């Protein structure tokens, strides 16, 4: 992943994982609780529109607003987070979960 970084940047950038969850606004509190319990240093929430298997989510009512939920975690914490998300998904909730590689300045801020 660090291929293509300059020498100096290799030292200040540290690999972490960005977990992205796309789901209904209604589930926001539950996601917050889930990642906090598993040691996330924080989270970021975007409001969004979209469409998928449950139709168009126009963002006009609470129930048809999507959120995109971001949490950056060190690799060591990722599995526990994914377990929690899988557990929510298993109950029938609609979640899209994406994991991507990021490099962070100041990794201590995400611990």
């Amino acid at each position: 992943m660090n291929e293509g970084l300059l020498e100096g940047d290799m030292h200040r950038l540290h690999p972490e994982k960005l977990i992205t969850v796309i789901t209904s606004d209604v589930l926001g509190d539950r996601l917050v609780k889930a990642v906090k319990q598993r040691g996330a240093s924080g989270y970021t929430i975007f409001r969004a529109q979209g469409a998928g298997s449950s139709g168009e989510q126009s963002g006009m009512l609470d129930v048809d607003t999507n959120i995109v939920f971001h949490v950056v975690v060190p690799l060591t914490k990722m599995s526990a987070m994914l377990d929690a998300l899988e557990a929510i998904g298993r109950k029938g909730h609609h979640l899209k979960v994406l994991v991507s590689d990021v490099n962070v300045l100041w990794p201590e801020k995400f611990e």
Partner: protein
Amino acid sequence: MLSNLLIPAVLFFALGFLAKLIKSDLRFPSDLAKALSIYLLVAIGLHGGYELGKADLLTALNSVMWALLLGFGMPLIGYAILVFSKKVDAMNAAAIAAHYGSVSAGTFLTAVAYLDSLQIEYDSYPVIMLAVMESPAIVVGLLLAAWSRRRLAQQQGEPVADTENGDDSDRGKLTHILRDAFTNGSVVLLLGSMVIGAVAAPQSMAKIKPFIEDIFMGVLCLFLLEMGMEAARRIGDFRRVGAVLVVFGVAMPVLGGLIGVFIGHLMLGFEVGGTVLVAVLAASASYIAVPPAMRLAVPEANPSLYLTLSLGVTFPFNVVFGIPLYHMMATAVTSA
């Protein structure tokens, strides 16, 4: 019907609907839509509470009791019909049915505008009933879902799946369900505003009056404009929902209207105006309070089913055809 279509609120609904049909790029900021519905709940609540302060206690209690009965009863009827129709599974039936026990403030307010435009008087008790009817339907919906879930699991010989992490006891679940039903955002807003309207000092209520009365009808128009767009957006989902369910989405409010007319006039003794409003309460389906509750607690149900039925079928039906129909029914019963 014609006079109904000359009411600005209804016309704005039609305009929003049309805008989407002709694929206009008309866009409504999403925070505006949410702001309008917060305003409407607060305004209805304050108004209802203020009326409650002046109300006859016995009639008020009687209304509340019938409101509770409607809120508990309609979902049971709906659930039975849906399960019987065999077009959806039990979880979806529970979630859909819950919507019909609750009410649509937008429909109620359109009915008020309709009565106003015909200069028909109406009692203030239905506003109180409106505020009371949000929660019971949620409770029934969640209970029906819990019960269906258990039955399903037993049929399949599986252990009962739990909707809440680490809260396994039945007792825990019931309190949970009740809490969910009463902490629902719109329930809190509506009941809270009602209490405020009832207890606030009259001279300070006077200062709020212009906000909740003068601009009310205009705000309702904007809200219905947006709801029209929202309804039209769901038209495409009709196929997904299927003809039988669409029929349900029309038959259920008509049935509710009948029951409501009966309760409004015979049980509560209202004149034609009040009777129409009770009919609308029974006939309308929630799209604010109930859907998030179902989404959260009945994840097995498909949101596009209940949203299409409530927003795409029942709401437009009620606004355009239902209200004049209930008016006819109410006239027939009250003049009988």
